[in-house]
């Protein structure tokens, strides 16, 4: 589903953010990507979402290769790989329902179905009661749920999450994790970057990859943990 092969990413000013990283996330797998800030977690996710291209090596996501997918075609990959961020990135002037409906509309859902499908997605993340709330009227956890519903609009095969619980209190963070587990149970692969070790410990069955200064230093599967 996601495969990095000897991936190095260098930025002209900041040097190498990733150094010869290789790993594979299978279909339906749940993986935590951890490490200190600056260790390369966000860079990895950006490469997987093809917001950036590797300097060396290859990133493959759901049949799309970083070496072969042109900038014009990246949108096709994005429909298979949903993404959520620490800061939610919702459209501030639009309600929860409108935020999700917008994603549905711009990815080709017929107008007549927008409302109904957006409602269903928000029900899936447990927000049926907050359809007409603006982002400012929602708690952090609720905003992240709207962002997740939006990421699910294209029925992706992979969900990428960059510190999704970073702005949330412990309870809300657990709630989001439970939601990811449910989505994963329905067959979706999840790659989640987090530096919250307590959260990782709370889900001991989940595979953990650890980055340190751009190098992959630990893989719980290979270490038999």
């Amino acid at each position, binding site marked *: 589903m996601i495969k990095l092969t000897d991936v190095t990413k260098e930025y002209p000013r900041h040097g190498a953010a990733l150094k010869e990283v290789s790993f594979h996330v299978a279909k339906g797998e749940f993986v935590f990507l951890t490490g200190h800030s600056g260790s390369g977690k966000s860079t990895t996710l950006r490469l997987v979402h093809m917001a950036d291209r590797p300097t060396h090596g290859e990133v493959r996501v759901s049949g799309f290769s970083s070496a072969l997918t042109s900038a*014009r075609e990246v*949108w*096709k*990959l*994005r*429909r298979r790989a*949903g*993404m959520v961020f620490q800061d939610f*990135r919702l*459209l*501030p002037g639009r309600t929860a329902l409108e935020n999700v409906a*917008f*994603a549905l*509309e*711009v*990815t*080709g859902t017929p*107008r007549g179905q927008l409302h109904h499908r957006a409602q269903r997605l928000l029900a899936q993340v447990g927000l049926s009661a907050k359809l007409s709330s603006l982002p400012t009227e929602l708690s952090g956890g609720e905003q992240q749920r709207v962002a997740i519903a*939006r*990421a699910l*609009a*294209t029925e992706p095969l992979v969900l990428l999450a960059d510190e999704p619980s970073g702005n949330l209190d412990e309870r809300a963070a657990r709630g989001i994790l439970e939601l990811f587990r449910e989505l994963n149970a329905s067959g979706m692969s999840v790659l989640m970057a987090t530096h919250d070790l307590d959260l990782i410990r709370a889900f001991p069955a989940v595979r953990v990859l650890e980055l340190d200064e751009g190098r992959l230093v630990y893989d719980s599967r290979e270490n038999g943990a």
Partner: protein
Amino acid sequence: MTHAVREALAAIRRAPLLTALSAAMVALALFVVGLFALVAHNLQVALDQVEERVEVVAYLRDDTRSVELEIAEEEMRSLPEVEDVRYVSKEEALLLAQEQLADFQDLFAGLEVNPLPASLEIALAPGSRDPETVSRISQHVSVYPFVEDVRYGEEWVDRVYLLQRISGITAGVLGTGFGAVAALIIATAIRIAIFARREEIYVMRLVGASNGFIRRPFLLEGIFTGLVGGLLAAGLSYASYLAVGHLLFPVEWLPGPWVAGGILAGAAFGLVSSALAVRRYLQEV
């Protein structure tokens, strides 16, 4: 497509002044072209009329022998550029002059000798009435020893041709200048529209909207602006045509395909300008 139309209209509502300014600049550029097209078209109409009457007149010496004349007429007729050759005798010339210049009756009445020369009027075939051919034929005619003088109104045929060329070049230069300014303003309008929607564009990219889908509203906005500019320019040109007709002298309106072509050129211009701007500025957000 409905999404693109809605977003384009929203962008126009968001910055109506800028849209109006863009359209006005396109209109100005096309209006300049339209005005000179009017001039060029009417000069062409005038030229066509003049050309129909273009003929070379060879005035003959009084002592021309009829045998020589017949041979010359024969030779003239055999040229492919020549449609017809007509001999006008001294008497006919006088009669014609008296008819055409009725105000000068007294002048002609007192004459004891006929001062007018006989002449050969050489009509040219269609397609052979341009200045070069006319001048070539008249040189050919002037070689005959019995030909005293040859006239074909060269000065003003040349002048009309020159005017037509000048108006074409001026329209090109001014049209290009105003066009460049219009393109810059359209690009600015598109840039502002992109900036106003940068958060939405970001989300669109995030969730996988296609590039075409993201671009379409901006391209539509450009087409709309150009189209309005084109229609405005057509209206201004028509107003000028009416004004000239009322105040100065009757002129002909432009042929339909020219007008339609001008309006479509406005739309195409708007599309190309916004496509270039979108290409450039969409990467910034």
